[in-house]
């Protein structure tokens, strides 16, 4: 009987430690002699630093060290670009501590190291920061004007700009029966994981060693750059991954603190811990989504799209961080989406403002692009008097048209191609599930609420980036150890990889233990982002398991003095009927020979992306007196190629939908005209809670296994979030159709809708 784990909703191996409070998150790690670090952050959005008086703080009992940029002998390094490193971005990179000038509220200015966190935070209050304020740039319009320069040496506030296109968009618009132009905006919000960031650095006084605990996401990339920054060989830098309380894109990138905590440890000669507090988190960890999009569409009278043109402006905040230009560039690239758009042109601008720098958040650029495009599709459907689903059907790429070259829509990216699939059938399945054809938008006589339904289609790329590693070792105890360079940010990586290992080795999953992320485990790794773990680390685990089986046969062949090809492998044993050796016996035998029963593997998909796709539908009830929207039902379909663990995939989809509802209605980083962040606590920055849950039907389709990896996986981490604002926005716009209210800007808060409704009433 062979063991079958792939495709089963195996209960997670991680759960027990999390359920009993014995997980090890970064703040749970305690090292002997450890000191605590706190950071003085700029309370000003834009100002020259004239003086930092640290005397009183230094004199405080329990304070070990206080420093600012001027106190450091070595020049501070710039935080590097990891992704979308467009020309000219080099002018806007951040150094870990502000020097001479602060450029956003939350920028690190000085560091305190003390015996405990209470003392460190007390000492922060004794540091006297004197500044000469400068005008704050808080809109992309003011940034463009360039009257105040944020980075003087750059000579402009434009991070960079470029134009991309395919086909003859001018000609398409010239002869078109129908055109429409709209202005869309997706508001600044962010990932906001429940666990804030944190790090512990330790240095060895006797040898070159920097060990950084609390790392995750892209540890090998980060190690390379930290090694460079601290002038150490890579082998002397260890990044250690702990349990992680949510990532969603923001955690694990190189931030100022990844340099400051090691510097503090070097200076004090002690292990140093820094745990971000929530107020810091909301102003110091990457923001995202802040896009404006001027978009035009051209179509025939039947609604067949002829062309799209757009200009996307991204508010990048004060510096370009590791994620470079990902958010606006992906918003531009994904604007045409799953549709047949023969001509497309887009200008993209990256504007520097006095706000927290921007990075990726689950579905970066996709969430934004879907909102703009799918709202436009619904507007066009109304204009042309075509049902929104019919209009989408007319324009969705058909299975015969795939693979479909979308062209070079991001400078420096390889030519992109949508892989095989069946977009119309994913929409059809959604329409069946939500009983679309039976639905009628109406004002419900029972409670006076407007009830309507909105739909949206999406595509989502997955499995980008460098190769991934896995290594499998059979221990003489019979336990199996899987190590991978991929990280876990809480999504169940240990369980998923254990399922693959156990299935291919044909053993009980309980024997498998998965370790991940830390640079000490494997020689190389790609990391966790872009829905890639199952595809990349999953396939690497499969290859390693196959190699382990081969090696087991070779060892057994030595024992039996025969050729490995004479042997079979089943049930976790090598067989030469009627004799058999267990993996444990072979591991023990290997040890006696000074060998180990183990194999390393790398999976490389040559950066070919698999695209998941599907559709969302939202049924809403809108109270016209209060402007409050309740999402009552939600459906989504998502083609993921092949499901590794259906329960975990369901968890990703449902979690994504709720997170997306936050981005649609609640999450909002609000700045005033002086560049002050007004939403610096959980009392002001609102997140979805359990009090307004829709009933969600999430259907993972497995009709088109990816041809770009042998296991057929496509990523499944982002399809749940990417079309939420689009579907909900469309539903609200349908409800408000008689009022002629435009739903072009997020978040769709009750006060905005109420104000628009009052405005519409007064016009009547």
């Amino acid at each position, binding site marked *: 009987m062979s063991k079958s784990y792939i495709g089963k909703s195996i209960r997670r191996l991680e759960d027990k430690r999390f359920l009993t409070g014995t997980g090890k998150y970064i703040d749970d790690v305690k090292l002997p002699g450890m000191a605590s670090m706190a950071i003085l952050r700029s309370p000003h959005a834009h100002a020259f630093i004239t003086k930092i008086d640290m005397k009183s703080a230094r004199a405080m009992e329990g304070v070990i060290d206080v420093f600012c940029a001027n106190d450091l002998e070595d020049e501070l390094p710039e935080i590097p670009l990891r992704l979308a490193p467009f020309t000219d971005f080099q002018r806007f990179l951040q150094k870990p501590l502000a020097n001479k000038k602060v450029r956003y509220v939350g920028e690190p200015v000085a560091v305190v190291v003390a015996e405990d966190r209470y003392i460190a935070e007390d000492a922060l209050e004794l540091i006297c920061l004197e500044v000469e304020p400068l005008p704050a740039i808080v809109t992309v319009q003011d940034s463009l004007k360039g009257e105040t320069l944020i980075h003087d040496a750059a000579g402009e506030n434009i991070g960079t700009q470029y134009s991309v296109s395919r086909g003859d968009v001018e000609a398409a618009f010239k002869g078109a029966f129908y055109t429409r132009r709209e202005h869309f905006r997706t508001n600044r919000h962010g990932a906001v994981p429940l666990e804030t960031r944190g790090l512990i650095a330790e240095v060895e006084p006797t040898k070159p060693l920097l060990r950084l605990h609390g790392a995750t996401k892209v540890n090998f990339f980060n190690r390379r750059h930290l090694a460079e920054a601290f002038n150490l060989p890579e082998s002397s830098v260890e990044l250690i991954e702990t349990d992680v*309380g949510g990532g969603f894109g923001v955690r694990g990138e190189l931030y100022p603190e990844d340099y400051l905590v090691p510097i503090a440890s070097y200076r004090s000669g002690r292990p140093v811990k820094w745990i971000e507090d929530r107020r810091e988190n909301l102003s110091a960890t990457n923001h995202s989504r802040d896009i404006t999009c001027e978009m035009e569409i051209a179509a025939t009278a039947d609604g067949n799209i002829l062309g799209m043109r757009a200009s996307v402006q991204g508010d990048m905040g004060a510096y370009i961080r590791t994620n470079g230009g990902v958010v606006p560039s992906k918003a531009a690239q994904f604007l045409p989406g799953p549709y047949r758009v023969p001509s497309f042109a887009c200008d993209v601008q990256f504007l520097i403002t006095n706000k927290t720098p921007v990075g990726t958040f689950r579905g970066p650029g996709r969430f934004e692009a879907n909102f703009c495009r799918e709202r436009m599709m619904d507007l066009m459907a109304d204009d042309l008097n075509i049902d929104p689903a019919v209009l989408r059907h007319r324009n969705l790429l058909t299975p015969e048209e795939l693979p479909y070259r979308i062209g070079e829509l991001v400078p420096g990216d390889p030519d992109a191609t949508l892989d095989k699939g069946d977009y119309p059938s994913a929409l059809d399945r959604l329409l069946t599930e939500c009983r679309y054809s039976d639905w009628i938008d109406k004002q419900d006589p029972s409670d006076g609420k407007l009830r309507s339904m909105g739909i949206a289609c999406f595509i989502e790329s997955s499995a980008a980036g460098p190769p991934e590693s896995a290594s499998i070792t059979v221990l003489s105890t019979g336990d199996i150890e899987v190590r991978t360079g991929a990280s876990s940010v809480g999504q169940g990586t240990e369980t998923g990889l254990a399922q693959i290992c156990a299935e291919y080795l044909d053993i009980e999953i309980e024997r498998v233990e998965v370790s991940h992320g830390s640079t000490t485990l494997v020689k190389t790794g790609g990391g966790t982002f872009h829905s890639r773990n199952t595809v990349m680390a999953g396939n690497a685990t499969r290859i390693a398991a196959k190699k382990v089986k081969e090696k087991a046969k070779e060892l057994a062949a030595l024992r039996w003095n025969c050729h490995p090809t004479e042997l079979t492998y089943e049930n976790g044993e090598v067989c030469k009927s009627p004799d058999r050796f267990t993996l444990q016996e072979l591991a023990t035998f290997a040890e006696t020979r000074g060998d180990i029963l183990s194999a390393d593997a790398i999976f490389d998909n040559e950066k070919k992306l698999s695209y998941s796709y599907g559709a969302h539908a939202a049924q809403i009830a809108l109270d016209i007196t209060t402007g409050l929207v309740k999402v009552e039902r939600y459906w989504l379909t998502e083609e993921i190629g092949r499901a590794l663990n259906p329960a975990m995939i369901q*968890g990703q989809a449902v979690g994504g939908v709720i997170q997306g509802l936050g981005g649609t209605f609640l999450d909002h980083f609000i700045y005033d005209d002086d560049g002050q962040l007004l939403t610096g606590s959980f*009392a002001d920055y609102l997140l979805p809670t359990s009090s307004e849950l829709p009933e969600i039907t999430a259907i993972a389709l497995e009709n088109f296994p990816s041809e770009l990896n042998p296991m057929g996986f496509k990523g499944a981490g982002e399809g749940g979030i990417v079309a939420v604002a689009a579907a909900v926005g469309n539903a609200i716009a349908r409800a408000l159709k008689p009022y002629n209210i435009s739903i072009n800007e997020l978040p769709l808060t009750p006060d905005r809708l109420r104000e628009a409704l009052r405005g519409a009433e007064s016009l009547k």
Partner: protein
Amino acid sequence: MSERLKISLNVNNDTHACEIDARMTLADCLREKLDLTGTHLGCEHGVCGACTVLADGVSIRSCLIFAVQAQGMKITTVEGLAKDGELSPLQEAFHDNHALQCGFCTPGMLTTAEALLTENPAPTRREVESAISGNICRCTGYISIVDAIIDAAERRRQGPP
């Protein structure tokens, strides 16, 4: 400098003596002094619910009270929910319903649900949603957590008294 105090806390049926600053929160005391790091801190201003513990059976935010105030109370943290290494029916239900991903909100969800089920052994979905509405989870979308708590209520009703 804050005043130093010697206190005694009853946590998970054990008595712990420790010397702390008067201003130390109960959450910090549990985590730093008693090494009970299962209680998590997500916001430290009483909104996210990750630090929820039981005080005499009632759910409270351990980031919002000082450790000294907890003297004389019977405190239960997530570490006190499993009995003799066996997961409680509530913990089992979370495991079976995939009611956790990153696990960071889980201790607060469990303690909040424990208080709810003690007070109301047969809650409706709406009552469960209301009970955990002060606990933020960024991963699951809550629905599986509600499923788990409803499931746990059933298990507790059917289980040994």
